[in-house]
Structures are given as C-alpha cells and as structure tokens.
C-alpha cells in the first residue's frame, strides 16, 4: 500500500509541472499587470519601472516561470501584490471561511442523499422514487448563482428572515455565543444552497449503489430468514451500499478547501473563492497562480485518496 501511494505521489510530479506551465502561460496572455491595473495616476514612469523590478515583472516570461516554480518547491507561492502578504498566508486566512460552509453542506448533503437514495431504491418505481428522480434532475441542472439570487431575494430582502450576505453583521463586534449565532445566521443560506446543489448527484449515486446491493443473493437470504425489512435494509444492505460512496469522499477534497467562487460572490462570503475573483480584477498574479496550483494539488490528492479508500473499502480491489 505505502509503495502504491509513493508511486502515485511521484506520478503527480509531471502532471503538476504540466499544469503549472499551462497556468503560467495563460496568466502571461493577460495584457497589463498589477501595476497598470491599479491605475494609480501618481506613479511616474520611473517609479513604475522600479515597482516592476521589485516584483520581478520585468524579467522575461521564461525566467519568471522558473523563479516562480523554484520558490514553489520550497513552499513559497510569492507575495500577494494586493494583500501585501505571502500568498500562502492569504490562502490560509480565507480558506477556512470557505471550509466552514463547505463542510456543513458536505455533511448535510451526504446525510440527506444517503437516506433519500436508499429509500428511493427500496421503493423503486414508487411515486416517491419518481418524485425523487425528477427532483434529482432539477437539482443537478440548477445554475448556482440563480438559486442563490432567488434565495437572497425572497428570504433576505422580501421576508427579511436572514441577512443578505457577508459573514458577520457590520459593526456588531459580537464575541462568544453572540458571534457564533451571528455567523450561523449568515451561513444559513449559503449552506442550504450549496447543499441543494450537491445533493442531487449524490442521491443518484446512493440510489444506484443501493439498487445493486438489494438485488444480491445475501439480501434474499436475509429476507428468507424472516428478518424484519428494516433490519434487512439498514443492517445488511445499507452498509454495503455505502461502500462505493466512500470513493467519492476523496473527490470532495477540492470542494471542501477550494471555495465556491460563484456562490461566495453571490452571498458576499469572505472565502478564498471570492478572494480569487477579486485578485483577478487587480491582476494579482502570484495569488492567481498560487491558488490555481493549490486547487490542482487538492484535486490530485483527492483522486489519490479516492483510489486508496476504494482499496480499503473493497478487499477484492488490489492496488498495484
């Protein structure tokens, strides 16, 4: 197993190099740089040249790439031009805001999907199952920003039940429980919307898994033994239906830490996704590049975790 993991980690290296080249090349296509994007009229030509030299923007692109890649190897993603602090620190500051909403929606969507999926499989072709199937398709087809906007309009603006956006009430400066309650209220809509968006596909996955399991012989045996239907479903079938879903856990990794750009923008949530969108407007290359690489690493690690979990969950699979 450890050999497998090491080999997979080594295989990531050429992929990451490829990604870094593509990402860097794309960022070089952008006309203008941070200095021109700030549009500061007070800067003299001399000062502009000085600043470019300071940030290494005057070097030829190939050289810039190698400087960036070399620093990345030692965990230095450079200095964010906009935030005036290391990119790693910017990511570390905001990623937890993203994580908190992603984590809650992850927990809720898995619980809901597991139960709805299992019931819908147990009563396949029933009215309930048909409604679930249609709902699943609707949820999978929802444009995230649209449902986010609808939620803000009706629940925050019209009914005034919830805050319109942000993470805390401005000027409240609450501490302790009051702070947690405040953040909780602000989190409510983003979490619900994120859950809604991810629950569809997952439900479908659980339903399929359950359908495969309940057709197997040992389920028939369990029924033949005269076990209660509930015992058959939850003790015998459910556990095995969960197994294939374990591989999905790994794929959740980029979603948990990568931020939801569009939803964070809609709900004005101070997560890493929104910071990324803002860094784009100001051409803050180090942050843009660093964050994109961060996402790529998360994706690759997630894939690896999925494969490993698959081997752990199902002993019939041998990882080589």
């Amino acid at each position, binding site marked *: 197993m450890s050999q497998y993991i090491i080999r997979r980690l080594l295989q990531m290296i050429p992929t990451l190099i490829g990604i870094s080249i593509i*990402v860097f090349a794309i960022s070089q296509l952008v006309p203008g740089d941070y200095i021109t994007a700030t549009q500061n009229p007070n800067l003299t030509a001399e000062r502009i040249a000085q600043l470019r030299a300071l940030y290494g923007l005057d070097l030829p692109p190939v050289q810039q790439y190698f400087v960036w890649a070399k620093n990345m190897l030692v965990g230095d993603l450079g200095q964010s031009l906009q935030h005036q602090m290391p990119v790693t620190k910017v990511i570390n500051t905001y990623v937890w805001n993203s994580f908190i909403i992603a984590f809650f929606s992850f927990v809720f969507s898995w619980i809901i999907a597991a139960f709805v999926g299992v019931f819908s499989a147990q009563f396949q072709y029933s009215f309930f199952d048909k409604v679930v199937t249609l709902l699943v398709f609707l949820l999978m087809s929802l*444009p995230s920003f649209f449902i986010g906007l609808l939620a803000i309009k009706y629940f925050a603006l019209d009914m005034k039940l919830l805050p319109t956006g942000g993470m805390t009430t401005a000027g409240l400066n609450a501490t302790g429980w009051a702070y947690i309650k405040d953040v909780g209220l602000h989190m409510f809509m983003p979490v619900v919307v994120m859950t809604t968006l991810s629950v569809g596909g997952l439900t479908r996955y659980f339903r*399929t898994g359950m359908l495969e399991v309940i057709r197997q012989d040992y389920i028939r045996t369990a029924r033949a033994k005269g076990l209660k239907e509930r015992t058959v479903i939850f003790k015998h079938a459910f556990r095995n239906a969960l197994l294939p879903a374990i591989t999905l856990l790994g794929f959740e990794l980029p979603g948990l830490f990568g931020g939801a750009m569009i939803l964070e923008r809609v709900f004005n949530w101070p997560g890493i996704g929104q910071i990324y969108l803002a860094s784009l407007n100001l051409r803050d290359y180090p942050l843009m590049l660093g964050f*994109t690489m961060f996402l790529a690493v998360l994706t690759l690690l997630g894939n690896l975790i999925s494969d490993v979990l698959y081997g752990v969950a199902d002993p019939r699979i041998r990882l080589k």
Partner: protein
Amino acid sequence: MEQPSLNRTEQLQEQLKIVKAESPWRIAIRRFAKNRLALIGLIILFIMAIICAFGPLFSPYELNQTNIKDKNLAPNAQYWLGTDKLGRDVLLRVMLAGRISLTVGLVATAISVVIGATLGAVAGFYRRFADTIIMRIADIFLALPTLPILITLGAILSDLKIEPSKRIYFLMLIIGILGWVGLARLVRSQILTLREQEFMQATEALGLRDSRKIFRHLLPNTVPIIIVSATLGVAGAILTESALSFLGLGVVPPTPSWGNMINAANNLIDFRKRPWIWIPPGVCILVTVTAINLIGDGLRDALDPKMKSR
C-alpha cells in the same frame, strides 16, 4: 397435446425472427420512447428551441430597440415579460439570448467531441507512445481547475477588447477545449477493446489505411457513447456559459445571453423590485438544462444496456 406445442415453437420462431430483424438503433429508439421522463425532456427542449429560433420573427420589437418612454414596465398585455431599464422587451431578449446560449452550448460541445473522439481514438488505436502522451495530457487537463481557468481566460478576452459579436466564438472555443478529456477517455477504452476484434483483422487483411480504420471502422462503433456524453456535455456547457456570462466574463452585452441577463440582478433595484428582468432567463436555463439532462439520461439507458441501472 402435439398441436399446441408445435404452435408454441412456431410462435417462438416468429418472435425470434422479429427480434433478429430489429437493428440496434431501432431497439434504442424503442427503449428511449418508453422512458417517459426522457420524452418529456425531448418535448420541452424542442418547444424551447422552436420558441427561441422562430419567436423573435413574430415579435413586434427589435433587438436593442430602446424605448425610454416604456422603461421598467412590469409584465403587461403589450410587453408579456415587461421591459428593462432601457425599455427593451424582455421576452424578445430572452428568446434571442436562448439562441446564443443554445448555440454556444452546442458548438462548444461539438468542439469537445471532435477533439475528444480524435485523441481518444488515436490513443486507443496506436497505444504505446501516442497513448502515453495523450493520456498524460488528459491527466493534466483533468486536474486543471476549470472554473478559475475559464474565468481568467474570460478576463483576458475582456482585456484584449474583443468585439462582443466575435467574443462568443472565442468562448465556444475555450469551453470546448477545456471539455474534451472525459470523452477522450471513454472513446479510448472502447477502442482498446474494439481493436482486438475480428472485424479489425479483416481491415488489416484488406490493407486499409490507419485513418480509414479509425474513422470508418472504429469510431462509428463508439457513436452511442459519444451521443450520450455529448448530450450531457451540452447541458454542462450551457451552465458554464451562463455562469461566466453572469460574472460578466462570458457573452457580454449588447449580445444577450441567459447568464448576462441575470447579471441585471447585480443592480439592487432591478434585483429587488423588477424580478421580471432576471427571473425568466434563470428559469429558461433551469428548464433547458433539466430537459437536456433528462434526454441524456434516457439516451444512456437506451444506448448502453450495461449502464442501465445507473
């Protein structure tokens, strides 16, 4: 006793004949027609496409025809979906936006399919070196964070000051290029098994050129999975385009698209007081994408019996 059993044999033979005469495509169509949700999806998509394609011809208004006198009207008998801040008819804009959004989705997917099918076929057919290279590139594209890349490219298009009318072509290209990997992998794995089959030995014996083997004999056998993957791809491409346009980085005004019409919601007054400007395009995206997903799922059940349970 004899008579009925003979009849039974005859009946069976009859049935066998019918089954034998049915082509795989016909079976697929029959299976698809039985899937009620997929049929509903097909009908909805058809209606949607017809309205978007021909609706504007019956509209008394014109694209970008502004009428300040009638600005910000709620839906009424004259303007069925109301008007926006420039007095443009929202219904007409929704229909024209539908043309753009559907076209972008279709063309982007077509680009993905051409790249994906070709690369997948080449990798599966030549194996060894070509396979390693193509699949390595596929790995890179697979781990590439698509949305950040699309957003960056969208910003570059804005910076290069590309005309809005030409911009949609670049957009199709970008969305298409980033979407080929899934199909390439599917086609490759199919070709890997297909190339070992007997009909390929026949093509070898006939001395056919490689390109002919790939495009005339191997790829046609992968058409079912290409159709399924492409259908679901269109749904994804429409969603991607709408998200980018919503952020102002996809299709940009004055060209209307469903996504950039929802962008009006960034204006607080339009957002709160004039929902008729941004809700109809959102509903259109939702309905269209759901319909396409239903069709895609129906096609998967119909064309790929092995994946039926999914």
